[in-house]
């Protein structure tokens, strides 16, 4: 299978700090790909590079065989890439439904309420459609973000710590939900998550970042057995 997303030798510096140092990885179409690493490893930075919020200093970025480096951030959705945010980034003055409607912005004037409501039903928030997005509990706000991302009809979905704020059962459910999402919407998923159990259970492939470098990549079993990965996590609270 061909790679849908390929990140090649990406380097990004913020002043003197090297946030990403020659990072390369690929995400195959139809896969759920985990992206893990200790805090500050550069996971969210990688998301921001892929969605063009940050311009890398070096490297190539290709989606479906085409370079994204000339694409402005607001056209990323048009290419079929949608994302959620680590610290929920909802439109706080809008209702849940309106948030999802904005998600469908790229599809033009024709897409309306019906699809957005269907999407809310799908994520289990149908009854909250009229509520102010900011009034929902944190876990549900994360789900609104997923519905908003799905409303853009993406091919690649970037999920940034979707398990944040969930309890054990919630995480289990989320895992099943992401698998179902991938199948129902024919998605490819790139998943940043600290919850190792979740990443290892649902990922087809896992890449590990540490201090801005890629330190390992492979199947969940490979990664778990990799001594570099174990070392990177030593002393940090979340072990693989």
């Amino acid at each position, binding site marked *: 299978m061909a790679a849908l997303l390929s990140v090649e030798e990406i380097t990004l510096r913020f002043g003197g700090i090297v946030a990403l140092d020659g990072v390369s990885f690929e995400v195959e179409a139809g896969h759920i790909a985990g992206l893990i690493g200790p805090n500050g490893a550069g996971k969210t930075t990688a998301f921001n590079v892929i*969605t063009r*919020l940050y311009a890398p200093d070096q490297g190539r970025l290709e989606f479906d065989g085409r370079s994204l480096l000339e694409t*402005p*951030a*607001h*056209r*990323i*959705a*048009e290419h079929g890439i*949608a*994302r959620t*945010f680590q610290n929920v*980034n*909802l*439109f*706080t*003055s*809008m209702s849940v439904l*309106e948030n999802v*409607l*904005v*998600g469908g*912005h*790229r599809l*033009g*004037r024709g897409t309306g309420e019906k699809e957005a409501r269907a999407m809310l039903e799908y994520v289990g928030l149908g009854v909250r459609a009229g509520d102010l997005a900011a009034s929902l509990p944190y876990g549900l706000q994360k789900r609104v973000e997923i519905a*908003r991302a799905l409303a*853009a009809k993406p091919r690649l979905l970037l999920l940034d710590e979707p398990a944040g704020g969930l309890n054990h059962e919630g995480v289990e459910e989320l895992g099943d939900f992401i698998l179902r999402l991938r199948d129902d919407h024919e998605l490819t998923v790139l998943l940043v998550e600290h919850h190792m159990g979740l990443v290892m259970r649902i990922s087809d492939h896992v890449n590990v970042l540490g201090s801005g470098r890629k330190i390992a990549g492979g199947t969940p079993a490979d990664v778990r057995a990799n001594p570099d990965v174990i070392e990177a996590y030593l002393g940090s609270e979340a072990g693989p």
Partner: protein
Amino acid sequence: MRREPLRALALFAALAAVVFVLPAFVNDFRAQQFAYVGIYLVALTGLNILTGYAGQISLGHGAFMAIGGYTASILMIDHGVRDIATIPLAIIVTGIAGVLFGLPAARLSGLYLALATFAIAVAAPATIKRFEGFTGGGTGVNLFGIPELTASDAPLQLFGFELDFNNWIYYLSWTIAIAGYVLAWLILRGRTGRAFRAVRDSEIAAVSSGISLTRTKVLAFGISAAYAGAAGALFAVATAFVNPDTFPVTLSIFLLVGIVVSGIGSLQGLVAGAVFIVFMPLWAQTVSKSPGAPFVVYGGVLIVLVLVLPGGVAGLIASARRLTRRRQDFPKP
């Protein structure tokens, strides 16, 4: 749920009817003051689209009003264009000016945007004076009694009614104000309005949803300036005179005060904001005539208002509605 839009429509129609019959019950002087309420309503609608909905502060809307006012005046005095015809032209010219200003301004935010917009308000009067041959300089443009000004020397006959100048200005202003209000509602309720609010709420999430920040902000500047242009043109027609002091820096500040009193990001309180701009300074003068006192009264009332009604009049309306709705939610005993 479905009954709500109907009720809003009925309320709107009732208010429009009040606007229509009001001149019959007030004297000429009051009609003129209410005409200015209509004119400020146009400007406030535009400013609220930019600042309230798209989240881009403007301390320079008086300058856009000046562009509209001078466009209308110069077209009338130098080119013999009739007052009514100058208004759409003023809207176009000011809209373009808004877009041109918006292109660089879209890169600015917060305090920097506030200062950049303030700069155009400060520069406008001096710029007008500098181009004397074109603008009439410090003396301004006197439109009084010229044939291009409708109803200025003889009452206007319209649908069998006889309208003197003040009543004519009243109906002209309010027709444009109501049309502009409905247009704003139409723009804001759909995809464009959501894009404005998305940019205001979270630029990063808006971009990731496929919204271009530059395009959205420039569009907001253009639309908003076009409204200011209409208001400026009406202002020139209503006063039959413009000079650099017609559009001082304080005008821009008063407009901002107007949307704060109305409620930022809502169309519902705008009439109250326009009433505040026109009548508050007059009322402040009736309280005390000692030097400087009216300003203190004005400032004091403003402070009390923002403390008591942080969401402006629109916020008050929203809370009142929430209260009545909650009451309906309880089962009747």
